[in-house]
């Protein structure tokens, strides 16, 4: 106590002395920070803050054990001064030991009851661990100590969260009690006239809505107090309540007023039309009394807006189409009341066809009309655009209209039925239109703008994919790729072109090109989560381990940073008292931390590291233990994995009746999760092999159960494959260019993954126990290696052979076997195998020299004589010899692997465009060079990898 007082007196002095430590920590000079803190401690050995800072410096230097001891000692002193507490809680946050922070502040508060600052910290520490009950108690203490509104509402929201998010929220009666309590708490405050802010009013409304007390919410929302405190309450809140209350007439009138003032609000129109339908249900008989029914009034109102608006806005026109659509859905006479649907669409097209959003707008109404009507409408629009097969657009507006009509006709399925030669002619026309538009309307394009006619080329690429798919040949798609690359030279910022090129490169297994496009897209921050799927999931198939690791690193860096910071933002919402965002933020945070992209990237990155291990056994093992894989522990929250992919970023105009984006998303997500299951289990299984020989944890386990984890994982491994086969997943179909690429699931099932690792597990077990069947098992594993090698050599041969016909398409066709499996998966298998053998060998050699006698003596008692360590060691060496031999064969095969032969007849594919021959030549040359580079780089990397493994096996 005396020492603490002294500290208080000299705090300014100590502050100055501590400064250099802080400064060094800030700039990341941790070693110097440690020295400074030690220097300070020599003078003032009891200065708590200096000790805490020493702990932090040690933590930053990675000296965890020392740091832990140091921090523990400080915490046991139960510090109360702010700076020490701050440093300690910072350390605990870094180590994710959030409950320790709670303890820390609990002690501090106990010694200084009623201290606002400390209580606030205690509150936030409860927030971090989401302990709502404790939050509530602390908030009330805070309010008692310092009657600020914020604290009062901290306790209210804590009660609300106990009702809707806490452990008791699943029980309806508990939920009711908590929400009722929260409501009474706010009402008490209102009665005392203490409600002050917008967010407090929001919270009250929210509490009422959570309890379905809509009438009370309505009264509060339209009352005086709310008008004063919360003038900015979104008008949509009113709609929502009126809808819940079934007060359709008032809603209808309110919306008419709103629409009169603001005629382009889709949210208003949508609710307005719905309320009109609801009114019709309420009083269907009005018509008979000679009055107009609500739909007729709705139509009249919309018509009125259309006629009285001077500047044409899309709103009322789209609303009229929506009314038409909904009347038809309800089997009501839409034609009679509003008019002919096609004519209305054509009118819309004529008014707004020159805006690029017109396609999107019209597409909204296509699904409700028949296929026949769709195609007829599409032809009418093409006619209406005024551009025929023999003419060119006269101005930018006409060109946009033409584009819109073409996009709509693709969406209506008109292109799918064209014969091949028509489609080729269509492609040529699109190419010409692109070039014409570019040279006529796109001359003064800024580097940051998209070209006005780029959409022609995008459409052309889609058409070429259809053709390629129809003919199972790559020429067309390759040509499309060249065209896209040409477009990209002209409009460097068109991300659609980059995304489509990326996709095509991946289809062809050309990783260098894909990487180039990925970098060109400049995907960053949260995009790494939502857009990473275009590239990351395909990387493990590319066989380029170093490049892959870089991409993963960038992605993982984003995630780990956000993960660390996530709790501080929640604390922020409490500090700002923005109750309206708390739940939203918690959901957002959960989506981010449970992102499939995040989890999959971390697992793949670990596998990637293991596969590319190249050092000696000691180095490899220390690299392995730095990864801290816990085989016994499944760290993935499988049921909470979140699909954050933004599939709508790429623009598409594929036939609406053949696209089911939601289903495709679900199917692909499910499969990706299964892939992750296989990969993470493989990683854990493999880790359990190594841990059995080199693990640290194994020593604590009672004798005889060392292999428990391994056996359990092995069971899960075979069980998983059994289940996957039963699930009978279908590969994702690829009807269109923009569809998601197939997942690796089928590849994993087709390759001998299951058997290889299962047999390997047996081998490891037998080696461990010295079972009599060891020799047999060695043979089995050896056979597996031969199988893997054979497939590897065979696919390369097939690939080289296929080159004679069509280098690229076959590559895509056999992607699973060639570009994909051989490069990565086989190497996965073999590389991991090599690593394991080298580890086993190392261990066995050591033990065969030193422990042979002791071990055999121990084991004599249990049954048959196990094989001696020496023999085991010899067997492993034999396996390694075989592996080395096979790897050399593999290397030889890869050496013969030829680069893909590109389609030949391309040299003049752009001859009908106004391109200079040298531009054309460099264009095709560049794309071809990318393919060649990609192949060569892949071969080099693979051979380097093999070289490392051969060296490993040769030891």
């Amino acid at each position, binding site marked *: 106590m005396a020492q603490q007082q002294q500290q208080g007196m000299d705090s300014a002095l100590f502050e100055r002395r501590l400064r250099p430590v802080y400064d060094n920590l800030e700039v990341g000079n941790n070693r110097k920070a440690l020295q400074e803190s030690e220097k300070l401690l020599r003078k003032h050995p009891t200065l708590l803050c200096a000790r805490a800072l020493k702990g932090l410096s040690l933590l930053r230097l990675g000296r965890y054990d020392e740091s832990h001891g140091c921090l523990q000692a400080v915490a046991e002193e139960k510090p109360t001064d702010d700076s020490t507490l701050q440093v300690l809680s910072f350390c605990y946050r870094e180590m994710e030991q959030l409950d320790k922070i709670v303890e820390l502040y609990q002690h501090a508060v106990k010694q200084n009851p009623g201290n606002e600052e400390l209580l606030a910290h205690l509150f936030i520490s409860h927030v971090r661990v989401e302990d709502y009950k404790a939050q509530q108690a602390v908030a009330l203490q805070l309010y008692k100590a310092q009657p600020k509104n914020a604290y009062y509402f901290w306790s209210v929201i804590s009660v609300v969260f106990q009702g809707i998010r806490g452990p008791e929220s699943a029980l309806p009666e508990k939920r009711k009690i908590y929400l009722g309590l929260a409501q009474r708490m706010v009402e008490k405050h209102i009665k005392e006239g203490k409600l002050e802010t917008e967010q407090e009013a929001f919270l009250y409304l929210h509490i009422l809505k959570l309890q379905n007390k809509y009438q009370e919410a309505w009264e509060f929302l339209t009352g005086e107090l709310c008008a004063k405190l919360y003038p900015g309450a979104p008008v949509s809140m009113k709609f929502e309540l009126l809808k819940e209350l079934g007060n359709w007439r008032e809603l209808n009138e309110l919306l008419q007023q709103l629409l009169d003032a603001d005629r382009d609000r889709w949210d208003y129109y949508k609710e307005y039309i719905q309320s009109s339908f609801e009114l019709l249900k309420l009083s269907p008989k009005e018509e008979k009394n000679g009055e107009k029914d609500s739909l007729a009034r709705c139509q009249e109102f919309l018509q009125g807006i259309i006629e009285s608006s001077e500047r044409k806005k899309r709103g009322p026109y789209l609303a009229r189409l929506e009314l038409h659509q909904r009347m038809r859905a309800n089997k009501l006479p839409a034609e009679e009341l509003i008019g002919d649907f096609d004519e209305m669409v054509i009118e819309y097209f004529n008014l707004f066809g020159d805006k690029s959003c017109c396609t999107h707008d019209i597409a909204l109404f296509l699904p409700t009309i028949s296929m026949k009507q769709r195609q007829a409408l599409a032809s009418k629009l093409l006619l209406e655009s005024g551009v025929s097969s023999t003419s060119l657009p006269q101005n930018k507006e006409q060109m946009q209209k033409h584009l819109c009509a073409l996009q709509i006709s693709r969406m209506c399925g008109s292109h799918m039925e064209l014969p091949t030669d028509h489609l080729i002619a269509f492609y040529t026309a699109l190419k010409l239109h692109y070039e014409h538009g570019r040279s006529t309307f796109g001359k003064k394009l800024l580097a*940051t703008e998209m070209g006005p006619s780029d959409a022609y080329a995008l459409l052309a690429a889609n058409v070429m994919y259809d053709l390629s798919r129809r003919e199972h040949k790559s020429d067309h798609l390759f040509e499309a790729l060249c065209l896209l690359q040409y477009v990209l030279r002209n409009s460097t910022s068109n991300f659609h072109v980059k995304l489509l090129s990326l996709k095509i490169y991946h289809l062809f297994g050309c990783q260098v090109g894909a990487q180039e496009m990925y970098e060109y897209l400049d995907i960053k921050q949260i995009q790494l989560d939502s857009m990473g799927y275009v590239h990351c999931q395909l990387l493990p198939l590319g066989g380029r381990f170093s490049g892959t690791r870089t991409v993963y690193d960038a992605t993982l860096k984003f995630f780990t940073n956000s993960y660390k910071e996530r709790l501080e933002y929640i604390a922020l919402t409490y500090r700002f008292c923005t109750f309206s965002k708390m739940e939203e933020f918690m959901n957002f945070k959960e989506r981010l931390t449970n992102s499939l992209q995040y989890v999959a990237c971390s697992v793949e990155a670990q596998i990637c590291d293991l596969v590319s291990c190249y050092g000696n056994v000691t180095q490899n093992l220390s690299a392995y233990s730095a990864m801290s894989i816990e085989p016994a522990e499944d760290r993935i929250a499988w049921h909470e994995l979140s699909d954050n992919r933004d599939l709508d970023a790429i623009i598409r105009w594929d036939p609406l009746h053949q696209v089911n984006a939601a289903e495709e998303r679900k199917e692909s997500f499910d499969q990706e999760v299964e892939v992750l299951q296989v990969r993470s289990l493989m990683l854990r299984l493999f880790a359990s092999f190594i841990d059995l020989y080199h693990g640290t944890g194994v020593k604590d386990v009672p004798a005889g159960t060392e292999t428990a984890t391994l056996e359990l994982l092995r069971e899960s491994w075979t069980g998983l494959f059994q289940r996957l086969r039963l699930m009978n997943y279908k590969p994702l179909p690829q009807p269109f260019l923009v569809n998601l690429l197939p997942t690796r699931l089928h590849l994993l099932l087709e390759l001998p993954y299951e058997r290889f690792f299962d047999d390997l597990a047996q081998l490891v077990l037998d080696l461990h126990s010295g079972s009599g069947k060891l020799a047999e098992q060695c043979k089995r594993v050896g056979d597996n290696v031969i199988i893997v090698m054979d497939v590897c050599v065979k696919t390369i041969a097939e690939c080289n052979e296929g080159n004679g016909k069509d280098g690229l398409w076959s590559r895509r066709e056999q992607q699973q076997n060639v570009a994909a499996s051989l490069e990565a998966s086989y190497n996965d298998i073999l590389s991991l195998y090599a690593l394991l053998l080298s580890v086993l060998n190392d261990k066995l050699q050591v033990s065969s020299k030193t422990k042979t006698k002791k071990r055999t003596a121990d084991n004599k008692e249990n049954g048959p004589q196990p094989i001696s360590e020496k023999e085991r060691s010899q067997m492993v060496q034999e396996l390694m010899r075989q592996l080395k031999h096979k790897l050399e064969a593999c290397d030889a095969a890869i050496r013969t692997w030829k680069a893909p032969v590109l389609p030949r007849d391309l040299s003049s594919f752009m001859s009908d465009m106004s391109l200079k021959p040298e531009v054309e030549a460099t264009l095709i040359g560049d794309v071809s060079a990318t393919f060649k580079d990609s192949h060569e780089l892949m071969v080099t990397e693979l051979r380097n990898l093999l070289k490392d493994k051969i060296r490993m096996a040769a030891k």
Partner: protein
Amino acid sequence: MTTLRLFQLEDMFKFNHIVFDPLVEVYSLPFVLPKILQYPDLVLAAVAPGDRLMGFILGTRIVDSKEPIIGDGKRQSANHGHISALAVAPEFRRLGLGTRLMESMRQLLDRYRDPYLDLFVRQKNLSAISLYETLGYVKYRWLPQYYANDHGYDMRLPLASDVERRSLNGIMRNKLYSFGNMIFYLLMLYVVGIRDILKGVTL
């Protein structure tokens, strides 16, 4: 045809077709989250029928001094509004959406009685500058090398509570200063440029 609503955090998973534009900044979460969490009502999204995001505006308030300024007996806020981002997806341009979002922001900040709104814009972003100018914004300062690859402008719009447009005071001084800055910048470019060329020769 738009739905205007508050920007939701989940929108960040769906806004790629907007932020792929090279002139749109993709901010880091530590930059953007505190803003959204502090002033959620100043961050708006425009949504098309069919729920595709059309654009968004990220507004916030910046504290200028702790004490509210009391002038002419009328209370004026000591904060000012700031627009960190305005973005519209390419396919929804030329519909007046930018203007709409900017006007909504102006109305919101008028309610806070802030004296002015400001924003930073790339010098290259000509269409944005002309939009802001038609909305009444004035180039207040020139910001040399504000962006990694471009200069910028600080543009200001006096709001309703700033009747005498005091927030534009000092614009002349800024212009002179900017001019000096520009001269200095060109000079530096010249010097550094020469040095680079010399280096090239010696190599």
